[in-house]
């Protein structure tokens, strides 16, 4: 941008300026500060804790005056976020003081369940609530059928997750379902295919010089977001060499707007582009020969495969990107080292997600960016103090070995660790067995999973459902009992992020204010259940601290002295160790694998036929839901930064600036290319139906220059129907009209392969 265009952009309605100015006319401030005894510093406290609005769980500090939390800042002790926080963390205040939170355990009195049906909540005491839940839990164990208990886990602290999985193990159910199966798993399994680690990778943003982001909106939905935002400033202007960022995405996101180059791509063809880039790098011998030679396996077959199939010309036809752009990007990427290729939800949440993730990840190996400064690194997690193995009595042991409701690890989803979106079918069809009771821990899957009405039906069918949540979320709407849990500013916990900066960092959660209403923390609820259930469950929870505070104290004792941890809020591990190639790769060859030996052996164990192709990075045209003739466009849900990931959006500060690129909030839009809108004779601002083969939704149209012509982009985060004066009935939820599809390897839901048509409402 040059000066002239900038001035043009900033042209607002003008007015001439008079010559005379009142300068320093009045020296008294508009009102004098409230000075008299209003700032009683004795009452002011700064408390170190950590955020929980997304899984990054950054370290924060709260300014608390007279028992009221009034300001959130970053914690300078955290090297991960360098004392900074993202905008969402500020909104923690509104999460805490949300006027629509619930204060008491609520019991449902209407039998019928469904959207818009008033459950007629009746408050009850905690003692009654505990009694009722144990009345349902106990028979499951007495009948030796603990596996018929289903647990949903949404966004919880790491300590909460630890307590929940301990409860599941002690009770004897294998059915602990997290939300990871919606948006994390294919990326992980793609990495696992190459290096044997089934986890999210971290990126060494301190030293990288080039970022090639495939569908990754790192400034909006990147994790950990604060680190990406902080390092963005550093990468651009705080180092002698400015890092170049290239964003590949069918949609012009904030990240694309802020990057150096935006390359719009035909949706679902990122794997082809990655292989096209590889073709250029290999044919021009720009790859890191040393790393390839010593630490990779299967390069020759990969090389032959790529060279024979993915010339820039072929890839250009698939992706719609000019072959010069592919060549230029490939050369820049391989010559500006260290460089990172990172895949995000936009490129990976497709039916072939694992393969796409593998194809993108292999680019890092080509340029030697694996476990080096400025490359892809391997997150180390804090080592909390070991809990003694939980007591698993005979009932629990038998329950645990039952097949899991989500078919993980079967020939349907061979590599899967969790298949979240399979649960509704399992409940509705009673396979492999009937669910008798379910408990949700801050989960809201009937908002966040594709095909939401299946979830509604399944939740309706559950004989008994308890939801633990600070508010009556969409999922709680179907509960028989809602237990008010504390928000992250009112509870004890320890936390770390699934991936951040390589070295380990643990953060404390401590109550900055006393819990509002009669809410209780999830961990305390579990301790109480364990006590009341007795037997093996009670024994498993006997020597690990007694309550949430004791539990955190017990588990973090191995890290640092308690008082210091309370004060600092952060424990940092040793510096990151690079180039651990000797023992890094968890693959059959103990090397980085272009041809995945892990997948091959897994598939042969499942007695599945494997072609050579299956284990090599390849591009396969995506299976779309809906015929092209009838549904010419593709629905592309996206996550804006102001989408809160705790299951609620009832926060005015987030709502009013929800879509910065559109300059609006409180709503979302169907964004389509202006040419496409012209062809469909649709005008900006009018209401349209967006219809998939499954459902349709009415939404306002936005003509945009930043959307691929074959795409309808709709943000997620709106369309709440259950509660909240600042969210209920605003906007639409694109997940409602999505079809259901999976990545066959990891079982992750695909979000982007549903076709739609758009017409005037």
């Amino acid at each position: 941008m040059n000066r002239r265009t900038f001035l043009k952009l900033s042209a607002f309605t003008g007015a001439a300026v008079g010559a005379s100015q009142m300068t320093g006319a009045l020296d008294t401030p508009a009102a004098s500060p409230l000075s008299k005894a209003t700032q009683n510093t004795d009452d002011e406290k700064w408390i170190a804790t950590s955020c929980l609005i997304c899984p990054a769980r950054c370290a924060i500090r709260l300014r608390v005056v007279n028992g009221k939390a009034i300001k959130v800042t970053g914690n300078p002790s955290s090297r991960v976020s360098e004392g900074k926080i993202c905008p969402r963390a500020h909104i923690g205040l509104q999460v805490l003081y949300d006027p629509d939170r619930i204060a008491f355990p609520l019991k449902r009195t209407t039998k019928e369940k469904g959207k818009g049906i008033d459950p007629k909540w009746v408050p009850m005491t905690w003692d009654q609530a505990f009694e009722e839940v144990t009345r349902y839990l106990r028979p499951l164990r007495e009948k030796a059928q603990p596996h018929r208990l289903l647990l949903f886990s949404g966004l919880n602290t790491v300590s909460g997750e630890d307590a929940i999985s301990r409860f599941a193990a002690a009770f004897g159910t294998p059915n602990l379902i997290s939300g990871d199966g919606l948006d994390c798993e294919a990326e992980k399994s793609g990495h696992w295919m190459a290096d044997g680690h089934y986890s999210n990778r971290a990126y060494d943003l301190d030293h990288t010089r080039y970022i090639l982001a495939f569908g990754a909106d790192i400034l909006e939905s990147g994790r950990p977001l604060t680190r990406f935002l902080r390092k963005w400033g550093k990468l651009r202007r705080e180092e002698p060499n400015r890092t170049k960022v290239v964003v590949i995405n069918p949609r012009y996101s904030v990240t694309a707007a802020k990057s150096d180059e935006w390359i719009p791509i035909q949706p679902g063809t990122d794997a082809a582009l990655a292989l096209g880039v590889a073709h250029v790098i290999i044919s021009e011998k720009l790859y890191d020969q040393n790393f390839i030679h010593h630490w990779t396996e299967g390069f020759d077959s990969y090389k032959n495969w790529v060279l024979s199939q993915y010339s820039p010309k072929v890839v250009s036809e698939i992706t719609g990107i000019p072959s010069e752009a592919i060549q230029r990007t490939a050369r820049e990427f391989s010559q500006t080292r260290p460089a990172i290729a990172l895949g995000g939800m936009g490129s990976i949440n497709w039916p072939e997600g694992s393969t796409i993730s593998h194809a993108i990840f292999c680019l890092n190996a080509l340029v030697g960016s694996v476990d080096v400064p400025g490359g892809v690194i391997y997150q180390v997690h804090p080592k909390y103090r070991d809990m003694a193995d939980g007591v698993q009595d005979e009932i629990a042991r038998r329950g645990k070995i039952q097949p899991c409701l989500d078919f993980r690890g079967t020939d349907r989803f061979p590599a899967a660790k969790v298949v979240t979106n399979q649960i509704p079918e399992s409940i509705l069809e009673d396979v492999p067995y009937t669910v008798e009771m379910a408990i949700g821990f801050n989960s809201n899957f009937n908002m966040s999973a594709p095909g939401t009405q299946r979830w509604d039906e399944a939740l309706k069918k559950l004989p008994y459902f308890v939801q633990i949540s600070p508010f009556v979320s969409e999922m709680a709407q179907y509960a028989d009992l809602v237990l008010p849990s504390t928000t992250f500013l009112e509870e004890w916990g320890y936390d770390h992020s699934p991936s951040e900066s390589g070295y380990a960092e643990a953060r404390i959660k401590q109550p900055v204010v006393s819990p509002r209403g009669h809410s209780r923390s999830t961990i305390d609820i579990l301790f109480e259940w364990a006590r009341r259930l007795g037997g093996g469950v009670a024994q498993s929870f006997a020597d690990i601290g007694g309550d949430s505070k004791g539990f955190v104290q017990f588990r973090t004792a191995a890290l640092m002295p308690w008082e210091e941890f309370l004060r600092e809020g952060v424990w940092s591990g040793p510096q990151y160790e690079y180039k651990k190639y000797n023992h890094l790769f968890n693959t059959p060859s103990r090397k980085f694998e272009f041809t995945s030996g892990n997948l091959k052996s897994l598939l042969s164990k499942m007695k599945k036929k494997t072609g050579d192709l299956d284990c090599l990075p390849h591009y396969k045209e995506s299976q779309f839901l809906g015929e092209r003739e009838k549904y010419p466009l593709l629905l592309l849900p996206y996550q804006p930064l102001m989408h809160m990931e705790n299951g609620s959006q009832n926060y005015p500060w987030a709502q009013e600036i929800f879509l910065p690129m559109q300059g609006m909030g409180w709503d979302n839009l169907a964004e389509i290319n202006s040419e496409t809108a012209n062809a469909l004779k649709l005008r900006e601002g009018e209401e349209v139906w967006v219809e998939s083969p499954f459902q349709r939704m009415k939404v306002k149209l936005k003509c945009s220059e930043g959307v691929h012509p074959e795409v309808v982009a709709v943000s997620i985060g709106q369309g709440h129907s259950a509660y909240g004066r600042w969210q209920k009935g605003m906007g639409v939820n694109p997940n409602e009209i999505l079809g259901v599809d999976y990545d066959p390897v990891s079982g992750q839901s695909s979000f982007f392969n549903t076709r739609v048509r758009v017409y005037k409402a």
Partner: protein
Amino acid sequence: MPRWGMVIDLDKCTGCQACTVACKVENNVPHGSPEEQTSRREIYWNKVIAATRGRYPRVKTELIPMPCMHCDNAPCVTVCPAIATYRRADGIIMQNFRRCIGCKYCMVACPYGVRSFNFKEQESKEYQRQDRPPDRTVWGPWPFPTRTHGVVEKCTFCFHLIDQGIKEGKRIGEEVVPACVEACPANARFFGDLDDTRSQVSRLLSSRGSIRLREELVTKPKVYYLLQ
């Protein structure tokens, strides 16, 4: 006397809007509602605006954070008939709610659209904001625990933090900065004395080309933008 100014590096800016939220938190700026947004009656002291040009696929959107520009030659000050908006000796343009008669002349005069009129109905002279503690004594040095219906509001460069910082002998621009500068995760915003050549803002301005918005109007804004 210092002359306070702000530098915003658009190359580092991530368009995350942390400044907008932090400003609302610090200054108790009322949040809006869907109705207020439709009728353009929301109040922002620092909004991030998007300006787009070009056609697909050669499109470019600039995300520009817009605080008050605190012009040296401020049209709002010139036109105000009530001397409600005025410039302090340190260059901060202030708004005196008690003098403001709500004529909105300043809003018409401002070429940057950074002034908001408070249309909010007042209940018990205070907004019913659940997210803020009702005990107004805890709000620190902020002078407006209650807000006034029917006056014009705007960014003050967090003058209350600066005045307090000076009283405590702190280094303004380093130890004490406005809330938006403190909150910026990318460190894209800087605050300091434009007349002091050693200040960070002066050094930044001499290191790279910068622009101010609508310079041709000779308003002499004290908010500078560094370009990509």
